[in-house]
């Protein structure tokens, strides 16, 4: 059964009429992880925001987006708001800017849980603490009382994952969650995402342009270029035998890049000359 169905999604800029995403359709099955890859400006983020109905003013979209068979575009703003977080949970690219800078992290988490569940404060705190420990944040109470600028990007990413754990959404949408992190932290965060999937069995949309990460986590891959889906299919097939030249280019440039990197590391003296 498909959790999420996107059919003929078009996104455009209202003022100029410029098309940003063209006629894109895809579906997401229960427990599936779909990676959306493509360079920046290819419409990955816009697709995610359209699903959440969070495009900023001046950006419009059309098409059918259905969550468990229910068309999201006909929901009232209030009903849609209740779905955000509870059923569609977003994880942002940059944890450092994702939380209100003048309140402790805990305030955001408490407020979010307060919107969706009738738990007491203590219950919310206990659930958050358990989730935080599960994602490797060892001192939940201390983390919750910290301001966002007092935590590292990796920790804030884990906080967002922990919140998703508590919310138990149908679909998790992670918009380049590792891009702003260094390689080691990114690896750890990706491992948390893998575990999050194992634990929750929710479907996930994972936006990235790091094909290494995609290979690790995704079942299916969707390749976007200039607002259009140029290829979609199982991750394994895409990596071994891409049909579209652009995908082949992406895969090969990833390999060239790693070869080039190895060459650089081995050839320091050449570079200095």
């Amino acid at each position, binding site marked *: 059964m498909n959790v999420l169905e996107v059919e003929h999604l078009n996104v455009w800029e209202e003022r100029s009429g410029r098309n940003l995403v063209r006629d894109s359709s895809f579906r997401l099955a229960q427990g599936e992880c779909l990676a959306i890859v493509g360079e920046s400006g290819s419409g990955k983020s816009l697709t995610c925001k359209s699903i959440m109905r969070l495009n900023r003013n001046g950006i419009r979209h059309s098409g059918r987006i259905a969550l468990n068979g229910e068309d999201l575009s006909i929901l009232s703003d209030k009903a849609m708001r209740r*779905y955000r*977080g509870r059923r569609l*949970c977003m994880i*942002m690219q940059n944890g450092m800017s*994702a939380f*209100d*800078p*003048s309140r402790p992290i805990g305030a955001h988490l408490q407020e979010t849980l307060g919107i969706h569940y009738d738990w007491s404060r203590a219950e919310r705190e206990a659930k958050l603490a358990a989730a935080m420990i599960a994602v490797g944040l060892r001192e939940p109470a201390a983390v919750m009382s910290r301001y966002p600028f007092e935590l590292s990007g990796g920790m804030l990413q884990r906080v967002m994952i922990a919140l998703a754990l508590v919310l138990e959404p149908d679909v998790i949408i992670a918009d380049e969650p590792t891009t702003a992190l260094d390689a080691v932290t990114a690896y750890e965060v990706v491992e948390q995402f893998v575990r999050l999937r194992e634990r929750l069995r929710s479907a996930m949309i994972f936006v990235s342009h790091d094909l290494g990460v995609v290979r690790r986590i995704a079942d299916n891959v969707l390749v976007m270029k200039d607002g259009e889906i140029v290829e979609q299919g199982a991750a394994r097939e895409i990596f071994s035998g891409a049909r579209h030249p652009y995908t082949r280019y992406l895969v090969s440039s990833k390999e060239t890049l790693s070869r080039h990197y190895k060459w650089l590391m081995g050839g320091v003296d050449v570079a200095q000359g």
Partner: protein
Amino acid sequence: MLGYAFRRIVLVVPLLFVISFLTFILNGLSPMDPAEVVLHAQGVPVITDELIAETRSDLGMDRPLLVRYGDWLITCLQLDFGISFITGDPVWSLLGPALLNTLKLTLVSSFFIILLSIALGVVCALKEGKWPDLSIRSISFLLTSMPVYWLAALLIGYFSVKLDLLPTSGMNSLGSYVLPVAVIVVGYVGIYFRIIRSSMLSNLNADYVLYGRACGMTERSLILKVLRNSLQVAVSVFGMAIPIVLGSTVVVENMFAWPGLGTLTVNSILGRDFPIIQAYVLVLAVAFVLFNTVSDLLNAAVNPRLRKEF
């Protein structure tokens, strides 16, 4: 927070020394010999070189600069800024009441500047690009380009002379405040509401608003967060605004014959009454530094991030 406050206050001390020293040597800029000025001011008919030399030593001007600075600073700390060349009164007896009057004008004006700037800034940010935003911005643009005395003349002509509603000048009743405050507020609101507006806009478009929305938070709750964060910028901006207003009431005071520092200073400049000018500069520069310090402290109190980074 206490540690921050302490460090911030300690920083002010050397600045105050530098400022007072600069004010002290400001006198040296004058092309006229102070001794000669004193003699002129006292109405001595024939000024001879001996008389000048005598006056110079009477004034203690033949001693080294730093010694004179030290003495001067100590007398200044006792609010003794010397004697006015023109009236012969102690400077502080003229300056003190004038300072008080200017402060009243400044604080009342600043209050309205802050209130209006926040209100207009918030409205414009929430209605960005729509007619309230556009019209407020164009009107304020025009008003900012207007010379204050011209606006003052218009207002006096209409409200005081034609309608006879408000006094044209002086500081006799609450009504006396209306026009000068209006003129000052008009001059500054245009600048400060833009700051609030752009700060609101950058917050409205910030990631945390998007994430909050993605977590299902209500618009009301998000706007409150945006307000809170925008007003943090506002605190420091307004902290700076008050001393700037304090230093620029000169034209308005003259226009409305407000018995404040501006009127006193312009008259002193025209009459070359140096002790008053010097005292004016010192008092305002110190006030400027103190206001800035207080605004920094206030800012640190509302913005946890600043305390940490310092």
